[in-house]
């Protein structure tokens, strides 16, 4: 029972982070039509910024806030300097074909990932370093009994929960959120309604940048920080997004939690070596049985 509960808790806390990573991917996919492979590279970069601040004896919370803000700025920067100019380029019939239209940004995002990883290697040296937690990451003790979860687990779950509530309110309850959904669903009708779809795209990149930066900050304490540590989160986050349905924000969150629990159970009851096998099996099963994902809509299946 003890082991089972502990697997549930660590799975939920892991899943919360994957949900964030998946959310970041889906935001950019829906809002800008790009699968952003640079996403966790951006998060790695902002985690390094936080790590540097903490290294200079600033408080964790200041570093945390600065990392989130720079995540947003980096996201907007990628869109404004690379993605937007690319989408405007009309150079030849071949490059302008629909297939290339969706491929070029993906290749560009891989290029950005490369730049970020080698940039981080140059600035901060490629060796691994630790990253602190704001609260204790040992088993929480309540009334003399050690609980099957840590204070950091609670912090992660709480932070992600708050993020999801804010995101949901933003999309469902504000005019800006409505404008973003409208331009993602039908850009022509959105433009005719006076919505500035270019700004909405940049906003998607910005929010995604903040969400991924948060995922980076929350996952790094358990994995050490190096230019390529977060690649793994991208893979799991991407799987979570596909499982949930690439165009559904709620689906990506559910997918994230489901994968977190799966990984945790495999880890506890089987061996850690089987984690990737299990992920692959789930991915294949979803693609075979329900290719649009749990909550995805049928038409959108371009990847």
């Amino acid at each position, binding site marked *: 029972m003890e082991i089972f509960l502990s697997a549930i808790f660590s799975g939920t806390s892991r899943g919360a982070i994957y949900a964030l990573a998946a959310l970041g991917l889906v935001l950019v996919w829906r809002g800008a039509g790009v699968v952003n492979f640079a996403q966790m590279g951006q998060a790695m970069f902002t985690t390094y910024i936080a790590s540097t601040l903490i290294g200079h004896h600033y408080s964790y919370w200041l570093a945390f806030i600065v990392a989130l803000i720079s995540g947003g700025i980096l996201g907007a920067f990628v869109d404004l300097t690379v993605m937007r100019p690319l989408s405007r380029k009309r150079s030849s019939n071949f490059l302008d074909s629909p297939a290339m239209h969706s491929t070029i940004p993906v290749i560009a995002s891989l290029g950005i990932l490369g730049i970020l990883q080698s940039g981080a290697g140059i600035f901060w040296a490629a060796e691994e370093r630790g990253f602190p937690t704001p609260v204790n990451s040992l088993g929480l003790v309540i009334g003399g009994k050690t609980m099957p979860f840590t204070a950091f687990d609670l912090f992660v779950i709480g932070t992600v929960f708050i993020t999801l509530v804010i995101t949901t309110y933003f999309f469902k309850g504000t*005019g800006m959120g*409505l*404008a973003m*959904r*409208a331009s993602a*669903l*039908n850009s*022509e*009708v*959105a*433009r*005719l*309604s*006076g*919505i*500035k*779809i270019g700004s909405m795209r940049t906003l998607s990149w910005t929010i995604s940048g903040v969400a991924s930066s948060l995922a980076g900050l929350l996952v790094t304490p358990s994995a050490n920080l190096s230019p390529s540590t977060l690649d793994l989160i991208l893979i799991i986050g991407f799987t979570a997004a596909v499982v949930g349905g690439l165009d559904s924000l709620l689906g990506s969150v559910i997918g994230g939690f489901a994968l977190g629990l799966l990984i945790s159970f495999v880890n506890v009851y089987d061996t850690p070596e089987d984690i990737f096998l299990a992920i692959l099996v789930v991915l294949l099963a979803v693609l075979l049985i329900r290719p649009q994902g749990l909550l995805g*809509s049928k038409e959108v299946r371009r990847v």
Partner: protein
Amino acid sequence: MLEIKDLVTEYGSVKALNGVSLVAHVGKITTVIGANGAGKSTLLRTISALEQPRSGNISWNGKSIVGLSPEKIVRLGIAHVPEGHAVISQLSVEENISMGALFRMRSNKVDVKNAQQEMYQLFPRLEERKNQLAGSLSGGERQMLAISRALVSRPSLLLLDEPSLGLAPLIVEQIIQTINDLCRNTGLTVLLVEQNANTALSVADHGILLSLGSVVADLPAAQMKADVSLRAAYLGY
């Protein structure tokens, strides 16, 4: 007044509009009729900047609007209801309507609320269904929603693309009558594109007949309606 001079719009090497000139007067319904492929939709899409013209000019109240983005053009009071009941089916009826007024939200919140209520008075069926997804509406209701989405921005010029497409005659009658009332009561200028020439000419003040991207007749609506030979030549009935 909407004034179009020698407008040319191309898709690749195909000239969809080949030097179109026309005028739509304030507070009047001007209808553009013509067979499939005559360039009617392209005309509206060029006015609202969804397509860029190769040459020619479009001016609204004396100022040229060529080269502006669709978002800017909406802000000048020109609202376009594109062909095919253009609503966003994954959003609710209420969201589709508020979407049309988002850009005025900050400057005049109270008026936006009033405008939304007016849409429900205009089409009470939309109010009954305001929390439903637009995708669950019937064709007629969708067209009402698409028109409300445009009207809620309080335009002074409404570009309507084939509102009758695929709808039952009774619904068409109701929609056209609503537009007619709006035009007569509020001074709205309407540019109505229709394949259904009889319906369009019966409410319009002025008729323009397009064929293969060129204007072939520009007459008062009643006169065009009476001209049997013109219709036989270009519309086939």
